[in-house]
């Protein structure tokens, strides 16, 4: 057996450098002679730029050059990677997103000027001497008001603030309306999915470098997908072909979606390095991150759930307003549509589903994918309305779910996806066990004895991961393929370097990916190294998001390794004077079936590179293979979550006492890492439900613009979690049978937190409380209790 193969909780090899201060994050990169850029950002949400007087600033000490929107006016804007088609067949409205604001500023944080100076401090000092003359315009903030006739427009060249009005599946609408009309019971819920700021702990950084003698550009950036940045920035903004542009994303300190997108600062540093012929570095401050990193969620939704007289779900109808912010971020249009509408069946066999989404431009920071991306919004509304329906009908919420679970697979939903496998009853059973539901009544009594309220909330979830079949997403408007790549380079003495297009920014790929190759070859994982994050090393890849790395990137690695094995068997067959069909590979030894003749892995790899005794007429020397893997379907992780809360009735303060998560991720490569991924997702989901709220005032000023005002979950806000992933229904269409685990925690946890608080309220006799919008702050909970 190989050491550290599939299923081993191998300790992470990347940890030693991180624990000893030897990581190499983008801000740790300094290039001799580099200059520093500081962006002067708009402090008003909406305004006409009359002029930007940079004359005084230009004379300040250390200033090298100041750029304004005029410098980029003829250049391409920051591109959007997904075009959504509306209900009537028209393409979405797509405004230009200039590198630096031109003509108008459209959100607090929109960059007006870029000051390049010898030092960071000099650039910052000079920014204070720039005098932008801006005429304030009314800020467009409320989505429903924004799409009324006569509303102020965020983009004057668009017909309105409506990006698109999407219906899905439009042909189902009549049947859904009919089913709701004829239902025995309809539960209606209006809710807000609160706007969040992703807040990876490492702020974004970009370092642009240019070699005038070769014409080569290099960008070091905090990205989840350096190849995507190379393509978007090179092809659409700066006009640099791939072979003259290298993008490197070294150690990256978390992403959660916010580092998928191509940002203006990356294009600026790359461009400015050429203009001033010096490296240009930008390090984002946290306060700046709040007004320039893409935000997440921000949906206002009405959902209706129809049931027949036997409590079978007959229809779901939703209407959602989705905030796009001021410009379309890279994948923004796809989040409330294809990553949200397609999940509205959840775990249930509801026959009629119709989803309407109106995406709206406002004078706020662009909104895009944040951990879960559309799927938390789908799960939250569905699992909340089911709980509410159970209460209205007087039935057990778990029983109502079980009654309506999909139990036969594959299952084609009415919202265009086909679930390959799952066992929702199994994860619910496991949840009730690890969550110790049997002990709840005793804990409730104990809380009561101390004058506290207690509640238990549950929910199921399903997500679509492993994005995605390229031809399918192409039909849906994606302007990219969503395959993944891997090159497996076997060296002469048997060690292996795997170059993957996936990118690790906390997920532990450097440890988990070698486990797969080790298992396939029967050699120790320590013989295998992963390279990622450099477009000059790895083949074109699409990067890491949407819980896709093991399902898509891992599959590419499997395919490349299969090619290695096939070739290695031919070499072994030659060395053993046998037919390659008779060669077996086990524990790193190639042997002839039924004989004791064998050669070791290292003998074969050496022969590949020192081909003295080698079938050169039939086989090339060397042992290196590349594969691109394009998935044939999404993967569908699922599970059941439970939250137990205690509430202080005097203050409304909610404390999370217990949290249990039973997930089905299919096969598991490294259980330790998978548990860690779930833990982190749970904290983000609990953060959304309890603490986090990105707040703007009516003038478009961001009120929660630092850690003084935006409440990040701390260690004392969360408990130890009970997590389990022993329920495994392997994916049927990828070679590893894996589904992905990165987002589940954030998708599955918010509804159970809110369900638990409502449950506590109901148990305490506050029967009028059927819903409280997130985050469940003491003020909101206390106010609700006052009636």
């Amino acid at each position, binding site marked *: 057996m190989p050491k550290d193969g599939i299923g081993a909780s191998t300790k992470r090899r990347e940890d030693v450098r991180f624990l000893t201060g030897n990581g190499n994050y983008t801000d740790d990169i300094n290039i001799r002679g580099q200059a520093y850029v500081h962006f002067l950002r708009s402090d008003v949400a909406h305004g006409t730029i009359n002029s930007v007087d940079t004359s005084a600033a230009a004379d300040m000490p250390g200033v090298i050059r100041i750029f304004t929107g005029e410098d980029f006016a003829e250049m391409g804007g920051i591109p959007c990677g997904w075009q959504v088609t509306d209900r009537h067949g028209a393409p979405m409205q797509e405004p230009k997103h200039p590198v630096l604001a031109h003509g108008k500023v459209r959100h607090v944080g929109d960059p007006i000027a870029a000051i390049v100076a010898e030092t960071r401090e000099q650039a910052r000092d000079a920014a204070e001497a720039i005098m932008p003359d801006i005429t304030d315009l009314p800020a467009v903030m409320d989505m429903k008001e924004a799409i009324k006739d006569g509303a102020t427009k965020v983009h004057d060249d668009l017909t309105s603030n409506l990006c698109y009005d999407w219906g899905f599946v439009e042909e189902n609408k009549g049947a859904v309306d009919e089913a709701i009309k004829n239902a025995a019971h309809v539960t209606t819920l209006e809710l807000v999915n609160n706007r969040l700021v992703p807040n990876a*702990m490492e702020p974004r950084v970009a370092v642009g470098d240019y070699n005038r003698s070769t014409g080569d550009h290099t960008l070091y950036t905090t990205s989840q997908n350096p190849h995507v940045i190379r393509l978007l920035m090179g092809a659409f903004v700066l006009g640099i072909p791939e072979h003259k542009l290298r993008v490197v994303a070294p150690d990256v300190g978390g992403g959660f979606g916010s580092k998928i997108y191509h940002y203006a600062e990356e294009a600026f540093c790359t461009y400015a390095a050429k203009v001033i012929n010096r490296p240009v570095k930008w390090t984002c401050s946290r306060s700046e991150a709040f007004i320039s990193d893409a935000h997440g969620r921000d949906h206002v939704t009405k959902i209706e759930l129809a049931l027949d007289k036997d409590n079978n779900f007959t229809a779901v109808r939703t209407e959602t307003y989705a905030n796009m912010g001021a410009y379309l971020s890279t994948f923004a249009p796809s989040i409330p549509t294809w990553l949200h509408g397609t999940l509205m069946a959840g775990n249930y066999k509801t026959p009629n589903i119709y989803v309407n989404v109106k995406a709206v431009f406002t004078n706020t920071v662009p909104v895009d994918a944040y951990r879960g991306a559309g799927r938390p919004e789908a799960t939250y509304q569905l699992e909340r309305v089911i709980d509410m329906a159970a209460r209205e009908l007087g039935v057990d919420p778990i029983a109502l779910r079980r009654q309506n679970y999909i139990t036969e697979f594959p299952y084609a939903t009415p919202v265009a996806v086909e679930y390959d496998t799952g066992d929702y009853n199994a994860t619910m059973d496991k949840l009730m066990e690890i969550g110790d539901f049997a002990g709840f009544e005793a804990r409730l009594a104990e809380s009561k004895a101390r004058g506290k309220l207690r509640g238990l909330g549950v929910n199921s979830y399903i997500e679509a991961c492993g994005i995605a079949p390229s031809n399918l997403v192409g039909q849906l408007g994606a302007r990219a393929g969503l395959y993944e790549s891997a090159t497996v380079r076997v060296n002469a003495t048997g060690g292996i370097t795997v170059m993957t297009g996936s990118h690790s920014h906390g997920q532990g790929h450097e440890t988990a990916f070698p486990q797969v190759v080790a298992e396939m070859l029967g050699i120790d994982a320590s013989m295998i190294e992963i390279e990622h994050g450099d477009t000059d090393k790895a083949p074109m890849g699409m990067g890491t998001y949407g819980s896709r790395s093991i399902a898509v990137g891992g599959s590419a690695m499997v395919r490349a390794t299969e090619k290695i094995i096939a070739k290695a068997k031919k070499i072994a067959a030659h060395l053993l004077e046998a037919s390659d069909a008779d060669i077996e590979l086990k524990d790193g030894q190639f042997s002839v079936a039924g004989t004791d003749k064998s050669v070791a892995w290292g003998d074969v790899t050496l022969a590949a590179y020192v081909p003295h005794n080698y079938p050169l007429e039939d086989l090339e020397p060397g042992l290196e293979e590349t594969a691109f893997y394009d998935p044939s379907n999404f993967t569908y992780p699922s599970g059941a979550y439970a939250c137990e809360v205690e509430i202080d009735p005097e203050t409304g303060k909610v404390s999370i006492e217990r949290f249990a998560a039973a997930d089905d991720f299919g096969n598991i490569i490294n259980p330790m890492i998978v548990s*860690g991924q779930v833990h982190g997702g749970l904290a983000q989901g609990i953060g959304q439900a309890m603490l986090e709220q990105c707040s703007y005032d009516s003038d478009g000023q961001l009120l929660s613009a*630092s850690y003084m005002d935006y409440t990040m979950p701390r260690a004392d806000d969360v408990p*130890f979690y009970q997590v389990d992933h022993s329920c495994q229904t392997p994916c049927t269409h990828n070679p590893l049978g894996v589904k992905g685990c990165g987002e589940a925690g954030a998708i599955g946890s918010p509804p159970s937190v809110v369900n638990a608080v409502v449950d506590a309220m109901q148990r305490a006799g506050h029967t009028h409380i059927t819903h409280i919008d997130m985050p469940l702050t003491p003020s909101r909970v206390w106010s609700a209790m006052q009636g």
Partner: protein
Amino acid sequence: MPKVSMTVNGKPASGEVEGRTLLVEFLRDGLGLTGTHVGCDTSQCGACVVHVDGKPVKACTIFAAEAEGATVTTIEGIAAEDGTMSPVQEAFQTHHGLQCGFCTPGMVMSAESLLKENPTPSEAEIRDYLEGNICRCTGYHNIVKAIMAASGQDVSKIAAE
């Protein structure tokens, strides 16, 4: 520009700084000790925690000049000379107490201080002590577990890996 001198990780270190230069800037830019990270600008996140004269300090909250003559230890100074990690560092790896690694230096520095002040802290004491260190990846579960393990407590009963 004023000159500052201090002892950093057991070695004398000095350099010219502006009056406004923060200790974290001096460590990162002046001395090239990039293990100490900057995750915010309001002294909330704790990624920059170092030890100044034995006490945990957010290196973004003091000027370099204020550390004149001080003994400073950064994350680079925690492992032994031969690279052997400290029990806290070891426990973080064993119990998967880190993911992206960005908050990790500050977490380790705070944990080292906690165990010096309180050799066997309870779960609640650990969570309370880490109030000034934000992690976005781990959900804190394995950080708390690692610190309990580093203090010699049995963590086998704590759920999950």
